[in-house]
């Protein structure tokens, strides 16, 4: 690992030592964050996977029914019957903080317009039973679909964050910390070497001076 390009001075050594301890602390914190994120992520992604499979299955069934309905009924009638839905769905989004990742928490508001009667926005005279079935299924799958939206988005955001954290941890672990260690070692060696050089020089001068005195 290459050492940093610095002057081997005492001042530099102090700065580097400070940086080294900061880097080590940062690395530990990030590593902890990564572990906890991963734990949460795995729980969530499992839920996501199951939810998606269930939703796709149910949605597929509902589409099949709807396809049957549109085959039995004429297109005009079909469109006419569902053009004015009884219900309106809106949602409220708050954010939740999971290990510094902001994930959305969605709250859905289904406001039934009018009575609490049937969910169907049409009379039964001109519509087929398949349409009723399709809409009922779709209506039942909707809460799951909305939950899927929330979970899947959270998973996406967390996956991104985990990737980012992992890069940082790796950069610290395999680049910054070894570099700092190497450089600190290098400066220490250099300073020690200077010290030894100095002592030898002094000893040499002393012996030279003694020799001169004896000769006089």
């Amino acid at each position, binding site marked *: 690992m290459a050492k940093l390009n610095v002057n081997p001075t005492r001042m530099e050594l102090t700065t580097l030592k400070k940086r080294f301890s900061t880097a080590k602390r940062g690395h530990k914190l990030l590593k902890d964050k990564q572990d906890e994120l991963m734990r949460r992520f795995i729980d969530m992604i499992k839920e996501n996977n199951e939810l998606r499979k269930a939703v796709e299955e149910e949605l597929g069934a509902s589409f099949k029914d709807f396809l049957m309905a*549109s085959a039995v009924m004429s297109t005009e009638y079909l469109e006419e019957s569902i053009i004015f839905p009884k*219900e309106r769905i809106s949602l409220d989004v708050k954010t939740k903080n999971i290990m510094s990742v902001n994930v959305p928490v969605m709250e859905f508001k289904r406001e039934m317009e009018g009575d609490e009667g049937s969910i169907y926005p049409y009379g039964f005279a001109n519509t087929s039973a398949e349409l009723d079935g*399709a809409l009922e299924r779709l209506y039942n799958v909707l809460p799951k679909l909305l939950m899927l939206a929330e979970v899947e988005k959270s998973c996406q955001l967390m996956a991104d964050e985990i990737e980012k954290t992992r890069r940082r941890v790796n950069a610290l672990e395999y680049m910054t910390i070894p570099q700092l260690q190497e450089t600190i070692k290098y400066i220490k060696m250099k300073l020690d070497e200077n010290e030894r050089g100095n002592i030898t020089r002094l000893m040499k001068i002393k012996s030279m001076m003694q020799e001169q005195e004896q000769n006089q």
Partner: protein
Amino acid sequence: MYKIAVVGDKDSVLAFKAIGVEVFPVIETEEARKTIDRLASNNYAVIFVTEQVAKDLDETIERYNRALLPAIILIPSNQGSLNIGLQRIKDNVEKAVGVNIL
């Protein structure tokens, strides 16, 4: 207050209309892209897109993946699932964990 939208081919999304979700039928890729961009900037928090439409819109969807809102969620169309949604879950796992553990 945020809204929900469904984008996809007409036959698939029509059913959603009946249960009170706003639907935006699209046919061409370009049209779909513009619709999604418009919805995203118009206070829609959840946009359901059929896989049939989404398969050509990787870039656009990827762009919104990083943002908190909107959540673009793929749903199967009436021609069945293309498994893009499940594939995306797998991709997420691989991105985060490194290997597919599911």
